[in-house]
């Protein structure tokens, strides 16, 4: 694994390699190199299985981090390829030519985060949300509580309790809720 990463680091400009778990390693790569690196991993290094593509919203730094999780059946190792992309005009190279199932993930990412994958099939169609007309709901600036109350209303009489305090008062009433 280490020799592989050393070689890839010089060829593809990989940085920030970290072992998350015994069999899961993540590495960061520049956006321009990502597709070439993933293709290399799939064709030459045995990472033939795409576990998933997901996205992390780092709103403070103004970036999305896309995570491509790849699996090698030979040595049962998992490799996460992380790519930072700009939050404004979020766009990424489509990898549906490498794995056909990738376009489903890409459709979902477009709907939930507003990330564009040019050339990916059926990008414009609705996926889970039908007729959505607000900002994509998984972006962190989207306030889901406000949206829910405005759109779906609020039932009068619904109250929320802090579970910890509520259960203390229920279980130890004589001690004033103190255990």
């Amino acid at each position: 694994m280490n020799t592989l990463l050393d070689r890839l680091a010089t060829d593809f400009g990989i940085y920030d390699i970290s072992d998350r778990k015994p069999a899961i390693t993540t590495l960061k790569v520049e956006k321009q190199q990502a597709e070439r690196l993933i293709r290399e991993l799939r064709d030459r290094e045995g990472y033939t299985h795409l576990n998933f593509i997901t996205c992390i919203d780092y709103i403070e730094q103004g970036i999305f981090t896309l995570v491509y999780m790849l699996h090698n059946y030979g040595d049962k190792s998992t490799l996460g390829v992380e790519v930072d992309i700009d939050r404004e005009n979020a766009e990424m190279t489509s990898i549906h030519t490498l794995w056909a199932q990738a376009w489903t993930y890409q459709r979902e990412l477009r709907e939930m985060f507003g990330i564009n994958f040019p050339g990916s099939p059926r990008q414009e169609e609705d996926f889970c949300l039908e007729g959505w007309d607000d900002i994509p709901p998984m972006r962190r600036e989207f306030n889901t509580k406000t949206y829910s109350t405005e759109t779906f209303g609020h039932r009068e009489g619904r109250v929320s309790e802090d579970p910890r305090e509520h259960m203390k008062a229920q279980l130890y009433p004589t001690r004033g809720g103190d255990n």
Partner: protein
Amino acid sequence: MSKDRSSKNTMENSGLSADEQLLFCNARPEPYKPYSIKAVEDFANWARANSLWILAFGTGCCSIELRPLMTARFDISRFGIAGRPTPRQSSVFIIGGYVSVKTLKRIIRSYEQMQGPKFIIALGSCPANGGMYFDSYNTINQFDLYLPVDMYVTGCMPRPEALLAAIMELKEDIKAGNCDGANRYVENLDWYKANQKKVIKNWDMPDYNW
């Protein structure tokens, strides 16, 4: 097509294109009128209460409670209740838990296709007040804004016993002639439709799915 499409008793079907409008019925539903003789109506209600057929459409996680009801331990068929595969054959719609907007559209479609008399049991806390999904961008908070509910069952999720109790109570209500949810829906159709169209933004089906 020689149907009169401009009279007062029709729906607009504005979500459909001009070609599609010709394919769908646009008549307004009418409320059910009880028999004029009370004994006959009582007999009809007794018959209705004893042949409840459930639409097998699990809309959320609470519908997992329907499976033990059908099998030997709780055995719902001893009450004359059976699952039915299509809306046209069923009379009870059990809303099984949370309702996302996408599912709500299918629920409305199925409910309107059911033939009267028809009843709705809302299961769990999600249809009542949003439950644990009260702040979700995609899950409705008050189901009775969109369709009339005859019986609520609380719990997250309710036990099969609770559902059985609700069905027993629904039976008593039907026998007493109190379950008028379908009539409320038809009489206040414009209010219900306005609420439905507020959340279902791509309304591409007829206004009433006959």
